[in-house]
């Protein structure tokens, strides 16, 4: 499926499969990053990443400052959370989280003074830091993947010695339609990205770094190229425009031709992928001692009157952002993330968290009606994981979880490509997620039973 985009750049690398949705980035592409309104009250959820939730370390009435830890990491695969404003802790409150369930949040009343916690937001000389020091700082700063997956960053930076990293990939692909904050970041803060990349190279003791940009962002490509000129370790590569190129495994395949083994991690093939936003945050954390208390977030979609790219404090209610951008009456869908993988929400009563790359308001919603699979094969041709999504959806529909597992349902990256192309409009990803959840439940049950049996003996 070679598409002739930006032919002037010659043959561009890409991965097999995938689709070319209309990218709709024109809505917000030319909006410079602006500071979002800082709310009177922020709500910092204690679970913002993949992995163990945090334990609160503040109490009602405590005075906190920006960058102060309010929730301690709950394990190795976890990241602390910090106060994003200075003020007083109003309490710890259960609030609806993006996955629909309730999670505890630290509520902080903003005193409007924006005072930093001691030592934060000051230049640091890290020239003699070793990789452990860098990793420790990244961990303290609460970094988690900002492309949306929110995997704790320091875990990625800690490959075991038998799995050396030979290539660090800085992901500026931003393949989700509509979203533009990574693009704006590349245009407006290229130096932070490059400095961040250098820090990552040091953290994992690697000598090669590729910054990947898709051909629909030629200006970002040019800017990055300009800034890396003279660097012997860092290069910029333009890729063909195709969704889901920003998915870690697909990006590694496109750039290096390597396939992350089924069930494995990028480090298994010597690669580390870091989103441009995360990379800039690594720089902020290490060079400026700034924990992750704010992030870029695109608020866009046909249902938004003035699409914008915001720099928003973590914990900012989305309603605050939407007041600024305006929302059209009759909006049908409210999505956190992009249109291909984002999570549809029933309420706007949510807050910005570390993984909130975009807020999308759409005027159209599917009826949800669907037909039998007509075996057209479009999903099979497009699946970047080379699965047979049609079959998986049929098995899941019939509740044949084990059979779905045999057909590699667990390898699905939930990119949404299959459902996007399906002419029968089958909810393939929904059914696949269902099968995965059931399999997880079965596995847990099985393990619990095994434990119980062992305990008896």
């Amino acid at each position: 499926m070679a598409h002739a985009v930006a032919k002037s750049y010659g043959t561009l690398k890409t991965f097999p499969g995938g689709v070319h949705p209309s990218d709709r980035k024109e809505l917000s592409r030319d909006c410079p990053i602006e500071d979002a309104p800082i709310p009177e009250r922020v709500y910092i959820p204690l679970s913002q990443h993949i992995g163990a939730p945090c334990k609160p370390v503040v109490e009602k009435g405590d005075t906190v400052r920006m960058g102060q830890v309010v929730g301690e990491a709950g394990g190795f695969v976890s990241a602390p959370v910090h106060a994003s404003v200075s003020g007083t802790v109003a309490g710890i409150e259960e609030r609806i989280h993006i996955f629909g369930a309730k999670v505890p949040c630290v509520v902080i009343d903003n005193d409007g003074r924006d005072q930093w916690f001691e030592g934060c937001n000051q230049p640091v000389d890290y020239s003699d830091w070793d990789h452990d020091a860098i990793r420790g700082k990244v961990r303290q700063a609460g970094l988690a993947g900002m492309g949306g997956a929110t995997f704790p960053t320091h875990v990625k930076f800690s490959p075991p010695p038998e799995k050396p990293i030979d290539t660090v990939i800085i992901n500026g692909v931003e393949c989700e339609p509509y979203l533009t904050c990574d693009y704006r970041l590349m245009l407006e803060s290229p130096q932070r990205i490059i400095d961040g990349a250098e820090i990552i190279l040091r953290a994992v003791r690697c000598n090669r770094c590729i910054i990947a940009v898709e051909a629909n962002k030629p200006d970002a490509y040019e800017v990055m190229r300009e800034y890396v000129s003279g660097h012997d370790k860092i290069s910029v590569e333009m890729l063909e425009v195709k969704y889901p190129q920003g998915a870690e495994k697909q990006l590694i395949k496109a750039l290096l031709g390597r396939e992350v083994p089924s069930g494995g991690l990028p480090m298994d093939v010597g690669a580390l992928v870091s989103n441009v936003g995360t990379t800039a945050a690594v720089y902020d954390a290490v060079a400026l001692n700034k924990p992750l208390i704010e992030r870029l977030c695109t608020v866009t979609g046909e249902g938004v009157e003035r699409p914008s790219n915001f720099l928003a404090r973590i914990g900012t209610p989305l309603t605050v952002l939407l007041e600024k951008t305006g929302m059209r009456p009759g909006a049908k869908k409210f999505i956190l993330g992009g249109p291909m993988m984002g999570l549809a929400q029933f309420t706007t009563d949510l807050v910005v968290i570390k993984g909130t790359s975009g807020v999308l308001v759409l005027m159209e919603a599917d009826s949800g009606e669907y037909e039998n699979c007509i075996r057209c094969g479009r999903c099979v041709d497009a699946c970047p994981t080379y699965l047979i999504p049609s079959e998986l959806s049929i098995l899941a529909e019939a509740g044949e979880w084990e059979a779905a597992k045999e057909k590699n349902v667990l390898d699905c990256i939930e990119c949404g490509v299959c459902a996007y192309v399906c002419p029968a409009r089958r909810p393939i990803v929904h059914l696949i997620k269902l099968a995965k959840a059931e399999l997880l439940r079965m596995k847990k049950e099985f393990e619990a039973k095994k434990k119980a049996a062992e305990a008896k003996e």
Partner: protein
Amino acid sequence: MSETKFTVSTSPHIRDGENIPRIMWRVNLVLAPAAIIGIIFFGWPAAVMLALCIGGSVGAEALIRKLVRKKVTVGDGSAFLTGLLLAMCVSPMIVYPSSAVVQRYTPSLGSAIATVFAMNLYVPLLGAFFAIAFAKQMFGGLGNNIWNPALAGRAFMLAAYALLVTGVWPNIEKIKYPGREEVAATTGATIRAERKKLIALSRAGEGPFAPGAAAREEDAKADPTERMKEIDSMVIERKVADPKVKQNKWLWYGRLLIGYRDGSLGETCGLWLIIGGIILIALRYIDWRIPVFFIGTAVFLGWLLPVRVVGGTSPLWMAGDPLFELLSGGLLLGAFFMATDMVTSPITKKGKVIFGVGCGLLTALIRVYGGYPEGVCYAILLMNTAVPLIDRFTRPRVFGTGLEPSKQT
């Protein structure tokens, strides 16, 4: 603003806009010109056949869906397509009344009913009903059927009304519509059947090839290669009236290409079938692998496979006429519009290659050695049956599995 009701559903939240009705109606549209050209060449019986088959299919679909209380899906265009394809793969002359029927007709109800039966108007309706009811809805409707419904309908008609379906074909040389004077507008054999018959006669040394037959001067023990050539020109001699075409084989191929010849509607206008097929490939509604491998294999083997043309001699290899194999019979319709049916062909690209080759192989075997002059229909139906098997053995390698670590860098 929090009063707004938002739809909550799983990602993705956008779609590429393709849907089943659009695909099916577009395929109908692409196929329509070939049917219209058929009506131009063969006249009103073709139009009647099309109307009956399409009406029968759509009616059967609506009726059955109503009976089983499921959503009536005739709007998706798939029943229409089944009817269209069915009409195109049988002889339009099924509904052509003999002169006796015409003469018997008087304007009365009884006579009208008798004429309906005498004209076999119920035969295409039954075929369409079988196609929809047994080959499609019995399996659970579009998507679940194993066999191509139109071909299943054709096979049913062939089994139930063999003489009618294979015995009468429009004779392009004699048809004059409207105000037709000529009653004997039907013929006993298509060009494929004619050729097959001649080869059989030649092998047996009978008919025109009998020793001392009037038509022949040379010895019956002719050289097989020469005999084959002779047969090929005899086909033209017998099937064509125009002396210019008789002399120039290329003109004959040209006629076959535009569809000026005996046969079903779907054998008409190979040129448009090719154009239409290319359109469908460009729209990505069919995969090029099926028609290319199907046609390639059938034509190649039709040319290659050994045939015994003269009794007592060894079989002759490489004696087929590739262009004849390509342009005669239902190969183009079958390869572009029937074997490519999404529901009844393999889902993977590799599977499509195997499927195409299999269809071509079976077609050639039936054509060269089988009892029927044409094998496309049965070849496709047989390969339809093998699709689950093909799918099982052509599963793609899942990303990140089955690769040697050494090849990873």
